[in-house]
């Protein structure tokens, strides 16, 4: 691939996801998708740089929060609703929790963080929750 002549070439999701930094991450597909311009995970060089810029240690908390929100927003509707949380949870636990447990956890999580009572998490809710989390900054970054 000649990047200098063809600056607009894009890498498919499968290639990026296979890199060792992302390979073990349960959210790897979501990360790549949410940083790609087309939303399908085909990243240009710019997108790629973007991704690791946000995931770098130097990125500010607000920026990280925004993209964390986007990553966890599986159905891309700008809200974290219950389905999003279920997906998140199942990826985190490799689906080892029973259905009732998943339901309970999701309900509790929404109940905790939902400030406006619409039973889904808007970005404001998410940000409010995540800015107080003690280890968000320390875990939400990738070293390359």
């Amino acid at each position: 691939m000649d990047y200098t002549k063809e600056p607009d070439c894009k890498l498919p999701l499968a290639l990026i996801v296979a890199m060792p930094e992302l390979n073990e991450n349960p959210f790897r597909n979501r990360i790549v998708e949410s940083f790609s311009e087309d939303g399908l995970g085909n990243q240009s060089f710019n997108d790629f740089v973007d991704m690791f810029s946000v995931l770098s240690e130097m990125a500010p908390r607000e920026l990280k929060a925004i993209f964390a929100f986007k990553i966890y927003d599986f159905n891309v509707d700008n809200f974290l609703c219950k389905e999003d949380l279920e997906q998140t949870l199942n990826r985190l636990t490799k689906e080892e929790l029973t259905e009732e447990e998943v339901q309970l956890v999701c309900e509790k999580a929404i109940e905790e963080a939902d400030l406006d009572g619409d039973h889904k998490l808007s970005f404001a809710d998410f940000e409010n929750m995540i800015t107080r989390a003690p280890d968000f900054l320390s875990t939400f970054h990738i070293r390359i």
Partner: protein
Amino acid sequence: MPRKTDVSQLEDVGIDIDTELSNSDEEAPKRAKKGGRGGGRGGRGRGKKAASEEEEDEDEVPAPRGRRGGNRKAARKGKDGDDEDADDDDDEDGKGPKKQSEEEEDKKGAKGKKKGGKKGKDDEEDEEEGGKGDKGATGKKGAKGKGKAKEDDKKKKKKGGGSSSSNSDEEDSMSEGEMAKLMEEVEEKKKLIATIRNKPWRMRRRLTHLRESQQFVDKFEGALGKGKGRKWYAYKVMMKKKWIKFQRDFENFRTACIPWERKIKEVESHFGSSVASYFIFLRWMYGMNLVLFGFTFGLVVIPEVLMGLPYGSIPRKTVPRAEADSAQDYSVLMDFNGYCKYSVLFYGFYNNQRTIGLLQFRLPLSYLMVGIGTFGYSLMVVIRTMAKNADVGGGDGEDGEFTFAWKMFTSWDYLIGNAETADNKYASITTSFKESIVDEQENQKDENIHLRRFLRVLANFMIICSLGGSGYLIYFVVKRSQEFASRDDLSWYEKNELEIIMSLLGLVCPPLFETIAELEEYHPRIALKWQLGRIFALFLGNLYTFLFALFDEVNTKLELEGSIRNASLWNMKEYYANFTLNSNDTEATPPPMHPSDIIRGPCWETGVGIEFVKLTVSDIQVTYLTILIGDFARAVIVRFLNYCWCWDLEAGFPSYGEFDISGNVLGLVFNQGMIWMGAFYAPGLVGINVLRLLSSMYYQCWAVMATNVPHERVFKASKSNNFYMGLLLLILFLSLLPVVYTIMTLPPSFDCGPFSGKAKMFDVIMETIDLDLPAFLGTLFSYAANPGLIIPAVLLMVLAIYYLNSVSEAYQGANMELKKKMQMARDEEKNRRNNTESTDQVQKDLEDLLPNRSLAPEPEKEEPPPKPTKVKPGAAGKKDLQKDVTLASPNPNVRGPVNRPPGPRGPGPMPGHPGGPGPGGRGQGRPGPPPR
């Protein structure tokens, strides 16, 4: 923007500055719009200030600030000629409204300050005042004041005009308003360049902006002077990065230095934090014992080995002739008799020589001090750890708020790139979720409370019964063993009856308690504590029975000692008498008696030491064998016989063992009690214990990973394992009692140990005070030991404890109060948000019109649709950041319909948005960024 915050932020975190700067962007245009000369100046002043933010790195902070403060003061007051002149000097350097570079300005300012001797002092004053003024006057007002001040300065300068600088003639090349605007824009662009990384934009957009701004800056910065500060800034950023990297590496290094961290994490990920807490406790214990080991070996054992008399030189260091034949037998050595008994491991080996070796090392004194210091150090460490744990427990009281949400969104560590680690992480996340679920379900459970209470009372009754029964059994056996002691024809069982009964009780009772505890249906975490407490009571009974038996033995030995002492002396005299009788030569000195022939006392101290060492060793054996048979053999059988068995062994009856946390913790605690009690009489015991802990760390880690299964009901260890520490403290106190009692009251043996020949052990201290310290210190000590001094001191301490206790209680009360308030505020907020959602549109609009609206985020629909490519970078503030959240999808509902009616809680940061980029920068008339 108050300058002070700027400076401090700059020193704090680079990133923060960037956001601050972008925030201040919004204010700039307003100032510029003030129109006219003054406005222009104000803007310029502001611009200059922004520029000098970078340059403050170069010059020391006070210089520019002092200068500006000076300006203002000069304008305001018009001081006496000298000072004013000097000030003007500065002002002309600085205030000349040319394209002169800001750096130069500041440097000159600094120089001028250094030059003007008297003025320097004055400036210091001014600086303070200026600082205050800056703090007080916020935002626009401050800027305006500044602008005016400068104007005045300039007028003055034109009038005075004496010592104007050379660059004043460039003044008219561009009109001031234009100049200021240009400057401002350049500053904005610069800021954009600096902060472009923090904007949630796509890279393409960033690049466009970056290129534009860079071009702009390059083009016009020439006109406004060279950006010399940039190099310095780049250097600073680089250094900051390097520093962060260094810190990270250092942190990694420190983590790598913690022993067994990986092992414990591995265990934790599979078995949960409660099992891991045992291993952490074990590691802590190992650390403490290592220090004790260092003291004991460094100050007692090694000096004795290196400088003391060698084996065989004196009776106490020699195996008696009667025992010499069997002294090397394996069975004798395993009982710590024979050569073991007369070795450096035990009390009796040490000589009572006051000083040994070339260094005049006072071994007896050191022995006593180490013995007491062991307790002192242990007490200190245990109590300090408890206090620290209590601190940790109180620190994160807030964590109940977002348990699940945090677990869900922050528990995955994005750094993980190793498949095995990832598996561990999955396991640990699942475990931690299960723990939280169990906790949650426990909270929700409410059943028949009366039945539960009845069952609990019943369970406690049964357990007390069994405890009493076991106590009586031990008492009975001890009585019998005293009877047996006088007989010779004992069978093996009768000899070992006490030990057998005690081990049996230790084996049978804990499972029995566990079964009974099923009735109580406590949360597993609480049940664990109850279980621990009960087994603790059982073990304590055993321990103290053992101790009383030991004391009996010691007393009989002490009685025996008197007669043996006489016999020994008589024997010695007889020997010499015989010698002179046989040799018929009264003049010749007889050769000394061989040390192994001298009759010796029983040396009760060594006896006690041997008992404790034996107990410890048998404890180690039992523990390891239990693991090997109870866990490993069982696991092997279950695993491999399962292929040819009629029922499922893994799921059915024997199954795999669970890790018995309570038993292991108590084993460890009691073992430590043995060490504390025995260490004084057997210095080698500490070494044995260190070896034991070291091996059991590896052995148990392996055993738990290889043979055990996680508990069925996973539960989280309580945050601070102060419960373990409490048990340890109790044991420490209980083991302190007998040792101190023996040191203080019993006379040491006459022919063995470092204190032989003295009436009491602590006489060593008196001796040292008398012989080695100057006389006045001796009298000082005798005064200090006076009850008249000690009683008031004790009283004072009691009072201090009482005072501190009541203070801490008051703090606790205040803490609870605050927590309650926070919770209430949160609930209120929630309710209010929910209510606003439902109230009608008119109300909403009304609220919007109220001035306090500025603090609240706007409702969604009022937000203009996001512009994906915004060319004008001037308005790139926090508002932008908010909008840009939506860069992928068109839905602008990023900020929920949150609203905030005008309440009495005016300008404070909203609980929901503490310092977040949300509502702050959106205000209409808000002067500065939200205070951090």
